[in-house]
Structure formats: structure tokens, C-alpha cells
């Protein structure tokens, strides 16, 4: 893999945003972006700007909602929070990712086992 950062798979950013909001509560766009960068240990290739497309998409699906408010430094910022439907969706998607990851893991491990024999 080397030094190259991970390219985000389609739809993964949405899931990351949902999980971030579920875990951290109300946050503004910059906060979300920073949080994802920190958690991923800077392994993810993320232009912070792309987060806004994901935010509007999730909002339109009704999974998150937004409200203008004041930031820590008393700066006007838009705060996002996860909705009930969003939480449900997150549970589904998490389940899906876990299963996919485990299947992928098994499939990819197959060659290694074969090599060992």
C-alpha cells in the first residue's frame, strides 16, 4: 500500500459522516471533516470540501438535519445532527459493512491459506 492514501469507496463517506454524528452528537461541517481525518489517522484521501456534497445528500434523504448556531469561538456555523431514521440507516449500513468486510476478508485470505499448504 505504501504511502498512498486510501481512495474513498462510493458511499463510504456518507457512512463515515453518519457514524461521526452518531458518536459525537451535533457538529459543524469542519468538525466532521477533522474528526474523520483524525480517526482515520490521515489514511483517507479527503478533500474537506467534498463533505458538503455528502451532507446535503444525507439531509435530503432525511437521515441528518441541520441548524445554524454559534461555534465554540462564537462564530456562526451550521450544525448537523443525526435523525432517528438516520440512526436506523446507520445500524443497517454498519451491519452491511461488517458482513461485507468479513466476507472480503475470508475471500482474500483464501489465497494465503492455499499458499501455506
Amino acid at each position, binding site marked *: 500500500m505504501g504511502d498512498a492514501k486510501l481512495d474513498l469507496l462510493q458511499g463510504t463517506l456518507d457512512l463515515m459522516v453518519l457514524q461521526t454524528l452518531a458518536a459525537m452528537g451535533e457538529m459543524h461541517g469542519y468538525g466532521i471533516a477533522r474528526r474523520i481525518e483524525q480517526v482515520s489517522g490521515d489514511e483517507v484521501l479527503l*478533500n*474537506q470540501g467534498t463533505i*458538503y456534497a455528502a451532507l446535503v445528500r444525507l439531509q435530503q*434523504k432525511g437521515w441528518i438535519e441541520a441548524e445554524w448556531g454559534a461555534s465554540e*469561538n462564537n462564530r456562526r456555523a*451550521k450544525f448537523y445532527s443525526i435523525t432517528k431514521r438516520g440512526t436506523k440507516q446507520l445500524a443497517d449500513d454498519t451491519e452491511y459493512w461488517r458482513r461485507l468486510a468479513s466476507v472480503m476478508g475470508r475471500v482474500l485470505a483464501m489465497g494465503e491459506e492455499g499458499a501455506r499448504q
Partner: protein
Amino acid sequence: MKSERKRSWRTERKRSWMDSLRRGAARMGGFFRKGTMDRDLEEEIDSHIRMATEENLRAGMAPEEARRKAMVRFGGVEQAKEQQRESRGLPWLDTVLQDLRYTWRTLLRDRGFATVAILILALGIGANVVVFSVVNTILLRPLPFYQPDRLVWIAPEHTEGLSGSTYSVDAFEDLRSMNRSYEDVTGYFAFSTPDNYKLTAKGDPKPLTGIMVAGNFFHVLGVNPALGRLFTADESRKGGPAAVLLAYPFWQRQFGGDRSIVGQAITLDNHPVTVVGVLPESFDFGAAFSPGSKVDILTPAIMDDFRYEGNTLTFIGRLKPGISVQQARAEAKTLFPQFYWGKKYPDSKGNYTGWPVPLKDYISGKLRRSLVVLWCAVGLILLIVCVNLSNLLLARAAARSKEFALRSALGAGRGRLIRQLLTESLVLAGAGAVLGLGLSYVLLRYLAHQGSIALPLLNSVRLDGTALVWTLSITVSTAVLFGLLPGIRASRANVQEALKDGGHGATEGRKHEAMRTVLVVSEVALACVLLIGAGLLLRSFLKVLDVDLGFQPSTAAAMKLDYDDGNNTDRRSAILQNVARRVSAIPGIDAVGFSDNLPLDRNRGWGGPRVKGKTYKPGEVPGAFVYIVAPGYVKAMGMRLHGRDFAWSDNDKSEGVVILNRKAAKGLWPDEDPVGKIAVVGKKDVRVIGVIDDVRDTNIEGQTGWQMYLPMTESDWGPDGAYLVVRTKLPPAQLSGTVLRTLREINPNQPSVEFRPLQSIVDHAVSPRQFFVLLVGTFAGLGLLLASLGIYGVISYSVTRRTQEIGIRMALGASPGNVQMGVIKKTLQMASLGISVGAVLSVAAAQLIATLLFGTTPTDPPTFGVMLVLLIGVAVLAGYLPARRASRINPMVALRNE
């Protein structure tokens, strides 16, 4: 476990579906709330970058560096905005709107072009919609009856005229009881004349047209009354209660749509008759069974009244479910020969055959070919319109090549450019379609109210949903067809070349011109096919008008005459003599006669005359068309007579007399003069006193059959009412009042009617052909106009392009005449190429319409000659205008300009 997973899958599906719906709605919202959302996003991004900068500052970066780093981490601001916009709104709709706005501005800037293009498209699309609607009404739409595909028309396989296709009452009753193929069989009395009833209400008596139908007629067709009920079995029985059903338009016209009329009695032919119901608006007897005539009332046929009057009934059957027409035909083959003409006459068995055909085929089958030809003609028009517009657009694309080059240099993709041009085409075609729909709406309304065109179902022609779908599809395909070629060409233009100051290079221009020339040549070829087709049909029409009718319709007029002779021949004779004397005295009237029916108006077949003393095999003597006439008729009609006319003195006391037509006379006495010979008509001996030239009795284009004329003054021949026929040089309408007043003085019960010019009967008979010729002719004219526009466009463009060259040539000594000739020669080259191709295509096309021609061969040299000369003439004219402009080029100006 399994079911649980399934359920969860299902709820998930449902949820994701709901989500996409919600998202779709939100996207729509995003599309419309662009402004607010953009401002919101801007502010959000702004605060994002500030926060990032502050954090960087806190981390100890210099202010400049902190902001730069923040921007880098964010990625492109504009990109992020665009990304967000794309996921929140409807990007494709944005593009479409942008294209539309741009199109609108472009077309507005070039109003002349837009107007011409839209007009051309409106004509092309409008014509197509009209023809489609007519075709749809007559050929495609099902008949306005219940399960019409199971209805069949039953007649002998090869019939000439209606009289050959009718059956006797006894045969009708046998068919109903003996068949296994039909749910039921019905029929109507085929030989009703127009204005055969007299309605007496408040005011003057009025003539009505009524048809006698079998009692089960409406049950078999599956027509329910709009008001009241259908006939009962009692009402179809002799001596039963008198009943009548009103046709919807008549009910509206005569009774103002008064619902209480049902159950009341009206006075028909001086007898009270109960109105039992009103038929629905969708049922029009005339439209389906006798195109171009109106029927006011329908009465139950009392079979016993005309049981032995001959073959008077037409048959319509409703097939049982699962029985095919073929099966019914097979049955008819064995069944029909068992029928009697009349059961009283045992030897009258075995003369019938039957051949069921789908009712729809009977009603519109004969018109199929004409309509298909019409459809092709109008399709050709649309094709010419497309070619023409392609051409116009190509010319425009040439002028706009810089614009396209600029746009493509600024990053517009090729697809985007093509899409822009297609949007323009679609907008033009759409505007043309709207205008065309308006045109066709007006035209179709006009056609629907043209009661005099003898085309079936035409009264119900209208702009319906199917026609709108058709319009939409031809509009889109037209737009793609004429927009795609110029679009592809324009988008392929060489950016470098186009942006250079000199405009496009010479090669590009020449290629361009070559393509346009090809288009114009094909346009001329298509127009040529249309013109020659129309020419052949026009010539056929003229030939039909030129047919020797055997009488002179132009100065004759007829009026239904009412009289009460109490079935006494002498009284009838006295009344008619009185009327003849009084009417003859009116100034302007040259001759007066009477007949119980008029040529080309109805049908009637009797057993034909035979030579006395000769025995014939059954079926050897053809039936004859009978006119029962009074003295003077032959002269009033302008018929040509050899021998003498009837006289008032030919009556029951004198010897029976007959006048034959030439065909019957030749049939009976092939080599002798028949005048003076004795023939037998029915059981009576009659002396042939005259022979007239054949009169076209049932149709103009077919063959004439045998005809015989019998005197009204003999009691053996009961006339079926009477028409007063006059010959006059005055307009008949001008005489109506005076004549009617005279008739009223003799008989106060005379219904008030107008004189019917005999020419109108002839016009009615030729109206379908006239209708087709008019339409095809119009299309050909349109095609010619479009082709000349195309020629003009190309030649004009080439003159503009070659202004310099022409300037140089003139500076070097070419005379204006030389230049002019050069341009016209070029035009002629192009036109004659198109015409040659067109002429070859026409020969093939003419074969396809050969069966529609009358007295004209498909390769009729005069038609080809005239049309080709016409085309060349128009082409020269179209080339002359640019040629004149070319010859007036001032070399000094032309050369200085560059």
C-alpha cells in the same frame, strides 16, 4: 430465519424506495431554491475555512501560511460548490434550461429564420396530423359499435352495385333460423330514397330521410339508445304499433333536444307514430352505411309489407365467439343456396350466395389504398420539410461556425454542442407542432362538418389522444432528423480554421456546399414524385368529370314532389299533368319531367326485360335499374333519345311501353333496331318505343348496367314517390320559391324543400376522388414550394460565397449576362439531376397508385411532361433571383470588401 431476512429485505426495499422519493422531492426543492441554498453554502464554506485557518494559527503557523494550508486541505472551493449543487439539485434540468434559454436568445436574434422554419414545420406537421386523423378515423379506429370486430357484412362475393348485394325477406328469415355461425343476423331496407318521409308538425311539412331497419338491428350492432328504448317485436309486426327512433342530430335540430319527446307521437306521412327513443350521438347511420348522406329517423321494417318486392335487405351478422370469418364463409357456401327468393315460388330456390366480410372492410376497405397513398404523400411532405430545414440549418451552421468554434475552445464538449443544436431543432419543431396542431384542428373541424363528402365516418374525425401522440412522435423524429446532420457537422468543425479571420476555408465551404446540393437534389426528387403522383390523380379526376353521364346535370334541378293519388293511376296522371302545366308556365323553366328516382342517388334492381317469345336460363338476363318516369323526364334531364318519349296517352288503355338504355337494347337485340320490338317486363308485354344513351346510374367510374324506363301512367308500375325535374338556365335556388308556391297551390301538403341541382348529386358522387385530389394536389404544391425554397437557398448561398470570384471575373470582362447564365446553368444542373432521379422514382410510384387512376395510364406522357416542365420552370425561377443578384455585383465593392 429465512422469512425474517426476507421481511427485512422487503422493509429495506420499501424504505429505500421512500428515501429516493424523498430525495427526489428534495432535489426538486433544491432546483427551485437555488439562490438561498447557494448563499447558505457560501457562508458555510466561509466559516469552514476560517475555522481551519484559526486552528492552523493555533498550531503556530504564520497567518498567510495558515490560510493557504486551510484552502489546500479544503480542496477547490468552486469544485466543492459544484459537487454540492450537483448532488442537491437536478443538474440535467439545469443544462436543459440553459440550452433552452440560449436557444430562445439565438432564435430571437434570427427571427426571419425562425419564422420561416416554424411556418414550414407547421405546414408539414399540420398536414400530417390532418391526414393521420382521417386515416385513424376511417381505417384504424374501431367502428362505433359493440365488439365491432365480430360484425360482418354478408353479400355475394362479387357484387356490382348495391342491388346485387341484397336479399329477400324469406332469405333473411331462413338465414336467421338456419345458421350456426352467428349470434344473430340483421339488416336494413337498402333502397330508401332521400327525403322519403314527410313530417307534419307546426308550420310547413318537412321532408325527412328515414331508413327501415330489421327489428333487431340495434341489438345486433350493440347500440343502446341515448333516451327511451329500442323497437319491440310487436312494433316490427304488420299491424303493430307505429314506432320511430330519432337520430341524435335530428332530435337536436327538430326538437331542440327536448327529452319529453320520447313517448309522444309525431305525424309521419299523415299518420301518428310514437317516438320510442333517441339514438346516441355516436351512432350515425349515414356515416357508416351511406357516406355523405344524413339519416334523420329509423323505423322498424315491417317485413310482410315488402316480402315479395324483391331483394331489398342487406345482411349484417354478429359472429358467435370463436367463429372465424372463414368458418362463416364455409357455412355460407352450403347454406345460402338453400334460400328462396320467395317461398311461394318453389323454383325461386338456389339463386343466392353469400360471402361474409368484416364490416370494417366493407365500410372502409375500398378506401384503404387511397388513404395509404395519401398517408405516403403527406409523409413525403414531412421528409421534404426535414430536408429543407436541414438545409437551412446547415446554412446557419456555416454562419455560426465561429460561435461554435469559440464555444468548443472554451471547453464545450462535442456532445454538448450537438445537444445545443438538437435543442434548437426541438424548439423549432415544437413551435411548428403547436402551430400545426392549431391548423389541423381548424381543418378537421371543417372536414367533420362537411356533410357532402362521401367518405365513411368522416363526421367523427377529430383531434384525439392518438393524434396527439402521433404529433408528438413525428415532431421529435422530425427534429432529430433535420437537426442531427447539421449538429454533427457543426460540432466537427475545425476550431483553428474557423477562428481564423477569413472564416472557414475554401475546402470546408465546398464540402458544405456539396452536402447542401445533395440535400436539394433529393428534395427536388421527392417533390417530383409528389408532383407526378398528384398530376396523375388530377388527370384521372378530370377524366372522371369528363365522363359522359348520359344526362346533363349542369342545368337541371330536382325537387321531391308530394301528391295524393289514392293509388289511382288516372288521378296520378291528372295531378302530374296539372303540375307539369303549371310549373312549365313559370318563366325560366325550359322543360319539366317526373321520375321516382334520380341517377347516382340510390339503387334499384328489377328483373331485366326479356325478348318476347324467347326462353332464358335462370340468371341469363341481368337485373335492370328501373326508373318509373312521366313524359318530359328524358328531355328535362337532357338525355339523348332515339325513338320517342312517353306520352300522357300511354296508359292502361293503350299498349304497354318501355324505353331501354343502349346496353339493355344491345343485350336483347344485338344486331337490330329495338324500337318497335316487343319485350316482356315481369309478366307484361311492352313495346320498346325508344332507346337512350347509357346513364350513369349508381356510380360514375364503374360500368353501366341494364336500365329500363317505365311510364308512371300505367298502373302495373307503382312509382316510389316522385321527383319533379326541371331544366332551367337560372340558378335553381332562385326558382325554388316560385315553384314551391305553385306546388302548394295545387297541394297544401307539399313539404318545403329546396331545388337540388343535379350537379350536386354528381359532385357528391365524385367527392371522395375530389377530396383525395385536393389533398394530394395541395401536398404537391407544398412540396414544389419547399423544393424551390431549397434551390433558392443553396444558389443564393453559393452566390454570396463566390462574391469575390464573381467580382474578379467581372473585373476581367465577364458581362452581367454571362454571370447570370452561369448561375442559372448551375441551378439547372442541380434541378435536372433531382428531376431525373425523381422521374425514375415516379415511374415506380405511379405503378403503386395505378389502381387509383381512371382513364390514365401510370406513365401518362402528358402528365409527366407537364409536371417535369413545371418543376424545371420553378427551379429556373428559384435560381433567377440569386442570378440577378450575382449579375449586379459591383466588382469594385466586391473586391474592396475583403
